[in-house]
Every structure is written in structure tokens, then in C-alpha cells.
């Protein structure tokens, strides 16, 4: 066998129907919340709240509908890698855009 220790066969874990329904309900409620939150003027925090709610929803989908909660560590590493690489792309690109106006003299 391979040297892996997680051989609890994640796919054999059966998620209870009630949990799925609960997640679904939470997602619907969060959708309502995000529409509601958008109707208030929170200034800079509108985007923060919106992304926060979206991330909660996304996490629920990934953890429960996509079974990440019951999957191998390797799968978890894959998801984290995706987030990390997106973070690299966004943040390093923004270092350019956010600092362009700091100095106006030529290089």
C-alpha cells in the first residue's frame, strides 16, 4: 500500500440528509442577508460584508456539499493552494496599482 495513513475512504462517509438541508437553508438565508446588507450604505464596509457573507456561503458549499470536511489532508492542501495562489495574483498585482501614485517622478 502507499504510505498514506488516511485510508478511512472519505467517500464512504454518508452525510445525513438533515445536514444537507440545514446547509441549504443557511445558504438561502445568507443570500437574503447579503441583498439586505447591500441596501444600507456602509461605505467601505459594503464590500467587506458582501465578501464575508460570500465566503461563509462558499465555505459551506466546499466543506459540506463538496465533502471537504470528510476528505483527505491532500484535498485540503489543494484547496488552500488555490486560495494562496489567488492571493498571490491579486496582492502582487495590486502592489503595482496601489502604489503608482505614491511618486510621480520618473524611474
Amino acid at each position, binding site marked *: 500500500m502507499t504510505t498514506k495513513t488516511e*485510508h478511512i*475512504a*472519505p*467517500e*464512504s462517509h*454518508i*452525510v445525513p*440528509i438533515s445536514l*444537507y*438541508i440545514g*446547509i*441549504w437553508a443557511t*445558504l*438561502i438565508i445568507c*443570500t*437574503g442577508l*447579503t*441583498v439586505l446588507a*447591500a*441596501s*444600507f*450604505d456602509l461605505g467601505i464596509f*459594503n*464590500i467587506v460584508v*458582501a*465578501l464575508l*457573507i*460570500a465566503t461563509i*456561503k*462558499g465555505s459551506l*458549499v*466546499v466543506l*459540506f*456539499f*463538496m465533502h471537504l470536511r470528510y*476528505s*483527505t489532508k*491532500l*484535498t485540503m492542501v*489543494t*484547496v488552500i*493552494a*488555490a486560495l494562496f*495562489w*489567488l492571493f498571490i*495574483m*491579486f496582492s502582487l*498585482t*495590486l502592489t503595482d*496599482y*496601489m502604489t503608482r501614485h505614491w511618486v510621480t517622478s520618473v524611474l
Partner: protein
Amino acid sequence: MEQQQETATFGMWMFLLTEIMFFGGLFCTYLVYRSLYYEAFVQGSQKMNVWLGATNTAVLICSSLSMALGVRAAQTGKPKLMVVLLLITILFGLGFLGIKGIEYHEHWENHEFPGQNFHFETLDKTPAIDPAHTEIYFSLYWAMTGLHALHMVIGIGLVAWLVIAGLRRAYSPSYFTPVEIVGLYWHFVDLVWIYLFPLLYLISKKHGGG
């Protein structure tokens, strides 16, 4: 069989990783231009129909539920239930595309498709702050939702293939790998929309359809 299912599942997760980076490029573009041209984006976003968008979000969430339950049905040896649930998933998917089509039609009629015939009018007929930059907003709207819709179409095709195979009793608790991995793909497409909706529709507190 377990070993093979784990391998296939890992393969699908890797593929989804590539999809995240694929959409990621568009999100990065969105991020840059929204930070540069916020007011123009606000004005563009006001022309979105939030109720249709929110409905679509709910439709996709329901489709994810039916998909997850469908995978569970395959896992617990209920092939007929699986087929029913997958058909429901397809119906939700088609519903999403239908609503999207209505929205696209409306935007098209309003000259909100970028290119030669683009002509932007704000929601309350005030002067447009920066039509060129709002055109970029709409370009991103069409590109991102269009790419998403294309993935939905592919997803519906994949689920339909599962239905056909399921009718032939191809899946059982000891072999339901294709159902599981198509499920992963489907949920991913839902996940993308979960981010698209607030970013495209909810930038401003004033919006269309309300």
C-alpha cells in the same frame, strides 16, 4: 475501488484548482478596474436586476442541494431516487440559464453589450460619470457571467450523461465515482456564482429591478 475513487476525486480537485485560477484571472481584472473606476462600476451595477440575480443565486443553491442529495442517493444504493434528483438538478440549471437569458436580453436591448453599439444610460437618467469605464464594467459582466454560463451548460451536459448512465443502473454504493466527481464540478460552478452575484450586482445600494 476506493483507491480508484480517491484517485479520481483527487484528479477532479486538481482540475477545479485550474478552474479557480482560470476564473481568477477575470476576478483579478475585476479587482483592478473596480478599484480604479469605482463610481463608473457603481453606475453600471445599478442597471443590474438584483431580484433576478438573487433568484438565480437561490436557484443554484437549490440545484446544489439536489445534486448533493443525488450523490448521496447513489452512495446509499437508491438509483431511481438518484435519477430523479439529478433531473431536478438539471431543471434548476435550465432555470438558471433561462433567467440569465432574460437578463441578457434586457441588457442587450439597453445597448449594454460592449463594442460598437454600446450606449450607457444610468438608472435614474443622471449623466454617466465615465461611460468608457462603465463599458469595462459591462465587459467584465458579460465575460464573467458568460464564462460561468458556459460552465453551467457543460455541467448540465455532464449531469444528463449521469442520468442516462443511471437509467442503465450503472452506479451502486461500490461504484459511484462519476456521480461524485460531477457533483464536485457542479458545486464549484455554484461557488463561482456565489462570488459573482455580490461583486456584480450589489456594488451599489441603488439598483434596478427593485
